[in-house]
């Protein structure tokens, strides 16, 4: 087939540029062009949202693409995600704080998107990709037969290619044209802006509150992505290497309607009401580059097609910014694309492999959307948020990260299928965990639950800390599968512990209602009841020595509320209530 390029990437944002880099690096014989409507130089600091990267994307940028030295020299090393729950109207030092106590060993970064995209443009040219700047893509005409090229219609004329990638972000040319857009259960909106100075979370706490400041022995708290959590919303503070601070408001529409904060003036007023300390700190500063995005979340039912196209980054799906997963999905869509294009150009594209990768991508996005929607009632509570973070991180590191880090996506169709079946088991457990957490939040009688003070995310030593460190160990495919199976069992214990905490916290009345609402059953794949629940009534030392490790970890992290009845009795109440209620639809694998 004759074509101008092997691959044309439409749109040169973060996804398109890193993909071009990866393609040229891994497939040096492939000719690659990027068509990007915006010319250089891009403004630094105030370019785009999406600065915070987490483990999966950091691994992609740093190790898969090999940009670690560049990132360390030009961007900030990030001190994990930090969540501050509790009473937003009270002093910040009295709000529960959940975050890393030490700089995480597995690195992650705060990216300055303007700087990064400027630099990446130069890097891809150096790698031999053709960058067509200042040209916009008007349409993508897909080939009608396998031996004809696709035609990319641009403002500077038509271009042909063998494989086409849509990386146009929210424009989503192919998704719209082909009807693959799917709604997300996450109904949330956001506004964000930059201020031209560092706004440090430490500045929100008076200097004389020495204990709160001293807890952060290395003075690196500010290098975290800080999330200030309130009912149905959160506010982010992200430091940028250029000295600016990115600040954003994210609200679930159900709790905080978009029109209450969608202009500069209204956003300031909203902050004054909801996060008065932040408002006080930034009052008088200019809010630069104020942007907004109502109803930002959407999914897809197809990111890759045997018709020789893929969609990467936001041109495929966008879930939610809470855990900074945007770049993770870029990493996965790019790496899967690189693999598929490589197979295709070698004449070895296996339709089953493509379909497996397509399925796993769509399911992971759907799963993340499940994790990140309908959870606004959880945010103010330190204990609930702590429980959620423990599970969500454990789940994220155990399946999604392991699948990516261990290169499972490079395997054959049968292996991919086996891992997708494993994903379905994680998905079912996650679904149960999320329902449990949300229902616990609905039933909670206090406005702010949980221990005051600091909770290590992860704490050391703990199951969660191990899960994090083990990300760096390379394993064979079989070892990876076996580890996922072991982790699933730990995950089941973890979710059971969340149930135990919820039951004790809600007491006999709430326990029955919890059981009823979630349709609790002994048939669930969880180690409910039995000896574990009997041990719970023992005095601390005996209890702690007899508990499984994860149970002790959770108790260390979340504190412990003793129920009005022993745990085993609370469980019986919950089970009995569920059994007498009309049956609930259960998540299926």
């Amino acid at each position, binding site marked *: 087939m004759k074509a101008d390029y092997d691959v044309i990437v439409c749109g040169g944002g973060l996804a398109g540029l890193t993909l071009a880099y990866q393609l040229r690096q891994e497939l040096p014989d492939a000719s690659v062009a990027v068509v990007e409507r915006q010319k250089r130089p891009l403004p630094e600091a105030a370019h785009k949202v999406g600065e915070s990267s987490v483990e999966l994307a950091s691994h992609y940028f740093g190790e898969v693409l090999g940009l670690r030295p560049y990132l360390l020299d030009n961007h900030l090393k990030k001190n994990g995600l930090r969540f501050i729950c509790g009473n937003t109207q009270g002093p910040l030092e009295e709000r529960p704080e959940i975050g890393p106590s030490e700089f995480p060993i597995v690195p992650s970064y705060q990216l300055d998107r303007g700087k990064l995209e400027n630099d990446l443009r130069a890097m891809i040219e150096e790698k031999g990709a053709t960058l067509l700047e200042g040209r916009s893509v008007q349409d993508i005409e897909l080939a009608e037969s396998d031996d004809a090229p696709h035609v990319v219609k641009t403002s500077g004329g038509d271009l042909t290619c063998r494989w086409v990638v849509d990386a146009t972000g929210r424009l989503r040319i192919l998704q719209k044209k082909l009807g693959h857009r799917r709604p997300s259960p996450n109904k949330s909106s956001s506004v964000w802006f930059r201020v031209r100075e560092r706004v440090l979370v430490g500045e929100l706490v008076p200097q*004389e509150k*020495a204990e*709160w400041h001293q807890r952060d022995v*290395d003075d690196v708290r500010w290098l975290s992505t800080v999330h200030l959590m309130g009912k149905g919303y959160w506010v982010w503070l992200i430091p940028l290497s250029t000295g600016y601070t990115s600040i954003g408001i994210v609200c679930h529409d159900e709790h905080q309607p978009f029109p209450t904060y969608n202009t500069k003036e209204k956003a300031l007023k909203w902050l004054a009401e909801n996060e008065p300390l932040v408002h006080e700190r930034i009052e008088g500063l200019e809010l630069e580059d104020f942007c907004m995005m109502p109803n930002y979340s959407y999914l897809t039912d197809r990111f890759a097609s045997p018709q020789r196209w893929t969609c990467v980054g936001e041109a495929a799906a966008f879930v939610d910014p809470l855990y900074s997963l945007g770049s993770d999905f870029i990493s996965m869509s790019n790496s899967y694309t690189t693999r598929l294009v490589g197979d295709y150009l070698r004449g070895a594209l296996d339709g089953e492999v493509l379909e497996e990768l397509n399925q796993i991508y769509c399911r992971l996005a759907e799963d993340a959307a499940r994790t990140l929607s309908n959870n606004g009632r959880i945010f103010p509570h330190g204990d609930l948020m702590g429980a959620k973070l423990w599970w969500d991180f454990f789940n994220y590191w155990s399946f999604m990260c392991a699948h990516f880090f261990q290169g499972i996506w490079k395997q054959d169709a049968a292996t991919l299928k086996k891992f997708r079946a494993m994903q379905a088991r994680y998905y079912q457990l996650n679904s149960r965990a999320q329902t449990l957490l949300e229902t616990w939040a609905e039933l909670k009688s206090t406005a702010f639950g949980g221990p005051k003070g600091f909770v290590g995310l992860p*704490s*050391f030593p703990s199951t969660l800390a191990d899960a994090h460190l083990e990300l760096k160990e390379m394993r064979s495919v079989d070892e990876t599968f076996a580890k996922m199976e072991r982790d699933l069992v730990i995950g089941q214990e973890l979710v059971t512990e969340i149930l135990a905490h919820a039951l004790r916290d809600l007491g006999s009345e709430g326990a029955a209602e919890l059981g009823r609402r979630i349709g609790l059953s002994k048939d669930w794949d969880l180690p409910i009841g039995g000896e574990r629940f009997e041990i719970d009534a023992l005095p601390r030392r005996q209890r702690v020595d007899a508990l499984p490790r994860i149970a002790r970890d959770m108790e260390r992290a979340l504190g412990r509320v003793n129920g009005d009845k022993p745990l085993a009795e609370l469980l019986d109440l919950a089970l009995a209530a569920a059994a007498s209620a009309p049956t609930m639809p259960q998540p299926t694998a």
Partner: protein
Amino acid sequence: MAQRLNRDQIFERVVEILSDSFELEPSNIKLESTLYEDLDLDSIDAVDIFVQLRDITGRRPDPEKAKQIRTVDELVGFVESELDAAERGDPEPETQMPT
């Protein structure tokens, strides 16, 4: 900066940390109490205590010194020596995995 804590105040904070974290009766926590026998704590509890003590000392403890502590009195003495070290500006142990 807040005023430096004296020995009695450090003891009070230590009692608070121990009773809040480990379901202990404050009145049962005495200077002469041994951590591992009288108070029935173990090594993971000790790690958690040292994480919390950072709030008072503002320093990452030297794991070798921390390991030798056996009684509440020694724990109070340890906090005092950490506060002295902080005042003198002694370097902290290298960042490492918290023990």
